[in-house]
């Protein structure tokens, strides 16, 4: 497949299996390398173990067998964006975004600048004092992105963050996410693993789409050889359409092959 030969693997999963108590197999046998600076999407139907892969990568969960190697400093915490925004309803947007820094024992004065920058990056500077219930679904997700961004993570783990949003908001947030992970100029690209069930989203965002199938295995991998920055114009190119068709096809085959007889 398309392992970038000259890059080190930031994350390396080898024959990872995860069985839940009761015998349900979430992941049968998954081997996957993610290179530093790479944007990888995990695509598949619900229940194929995509989210489990992310939890294992983050260390929130441990495999039943197999190994997971992370080439990260021990104190590095990935920026995890969950399926729901998971904001603390009792805290303002600013306090929600501050949370990871506050838990690391930073003082409000020292983090103020970074929190402001994170809020600006997701276009929420004007809502810093608002409570989550005053925000729209898209704004909540942006606050959730800012909360991950504020720690300047080397590794982003995103679990279907835009699945519940309308298409226009989703497109806008895809763009925002790319701006955060693939900065223009000399900014170092971040590594990202993005779980989704949208073919278009996977193709638009990533360098590589990993197609998963039940029960918890990798069915196919497709390289998306289009340069960054990508914008709305990329969605209109023939290349985008062809790639989407190919990924769609792979997804179809995976679900047929994985379907119970």
């Amino acid at each position, binding site marked *: 497949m398309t392992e970038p030969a000259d890059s080190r693997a930031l994350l390396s999963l080898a024959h990872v299996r995860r069985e839940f108590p009761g015998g349900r197999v979430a992941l049968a046998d998954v081997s996957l390398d993610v290179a530093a600076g790479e944007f990888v999407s995990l695509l598949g139907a619900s229940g194929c173990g995509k989210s489990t892969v992310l939890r294992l990568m983050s260390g929130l969960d441990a495999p039943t067998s197999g190994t997971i190697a992370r080439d990260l400093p021990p104190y590095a915490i990935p920026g995890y964006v969950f399926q729901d925004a*998971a904001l603390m309803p009792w805290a303002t947007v600013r306090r929600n975004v501050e949370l990871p820094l506050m838990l690391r024992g930073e003082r409000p004065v020292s983090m103020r600048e970074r929190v402001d920058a994170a809020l600006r990056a997701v276009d929420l500077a004007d809502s810093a004092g608002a409570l989550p219930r005053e925000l729209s679904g898209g704004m909540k997700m942006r606050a959730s992105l800012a909360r991950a961004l504020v720690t300047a993570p080397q590794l982003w783990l995103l679990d279907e963050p835009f699945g519940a949003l309308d298409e226009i908001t989703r497109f806008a947030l895809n763009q925002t996410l790319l701006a955060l992970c693939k900065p223009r100029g000399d900014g170092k690209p971040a590594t990202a693993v993005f779980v989704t069930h949208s073919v278009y989203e996977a193709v638009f965002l990533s360098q590589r789409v990993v197609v998963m199938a039940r029960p918890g295995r990798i069915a196919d991998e497709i390289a998306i050889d289009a340069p960054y920055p990508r914008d709305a114009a990329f969605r209109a190119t023939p290349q985008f359409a062809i790639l989407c068709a190919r990924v769609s096809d792979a997804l179809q085959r995976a679900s047929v092959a994985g379907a119970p007889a």
Partner: protein
Amino acid sequence: MTRAGVPTLSVVVFLLAWEIAVRALRIPAYLLPAPSLIASTLFDNFASLAASWWFTLRITLIALALATAGGVLIGALFASSRIAERALAPFAVVLQVTPIVSIAPLIMILTDSPLATVIVCAWLVAFFPILANTLTGLRSVDATLRDLFALQRASRWQTLRHLLVPAALPSFMTGLRIAGGLALIGEVGGEFAAGAAGRDTGLASRILESAFRTEIPKMFAALTLVALTGVALYLATGALSRALLQSWHESERG
């Protein structure tokens, strides 16, 4: 009409109807005294009734405070250990479902002190709603937020302070509001069971005493104070709940 206006008006109408009915039907005061007679009895006996009222209020608040401390501590223990919950839940449930009046004589024998009996009775009935609601609140903490705190390697103390306490607060406040009323009920039940008479006793003892002496207006006066204390507790816990939760929680938004 304001929000306070309608209930005030309905109470005033009720009292007027009561007064008129008692006068018109010539109901004797030893059966049902008129509100005006209750008010004047309350006024005439204020010094002695106020002492009893203070006794009742003090014991109720002490029991409520102890029930809050115990309920929160044991709720936290149950929330952090399924085994502790399974082991101790039967006792908590039996204590809750057994009517307090039926346990009170036993408590009286065991403690051999009317004061201790009253405190234990009030504590017992107020304890359970706080335990149950604290536990519900702690259990209802958003699983994703728990993951986020775990991911950020938050300490136990940080998780408690920044996640568990604020997340459990609305549910805890519900428990406290219920417990406030129940503590008073337990206190009165305890006084009845302890059956103490004399100077250092509460409103329930005054009610019993008035009943024995067929001083019905005085009985109603003491009863009025009990009822008003209950209302005051209800309003006070409600105000506290609003003050703590108003800014963000749905249940307190008007």
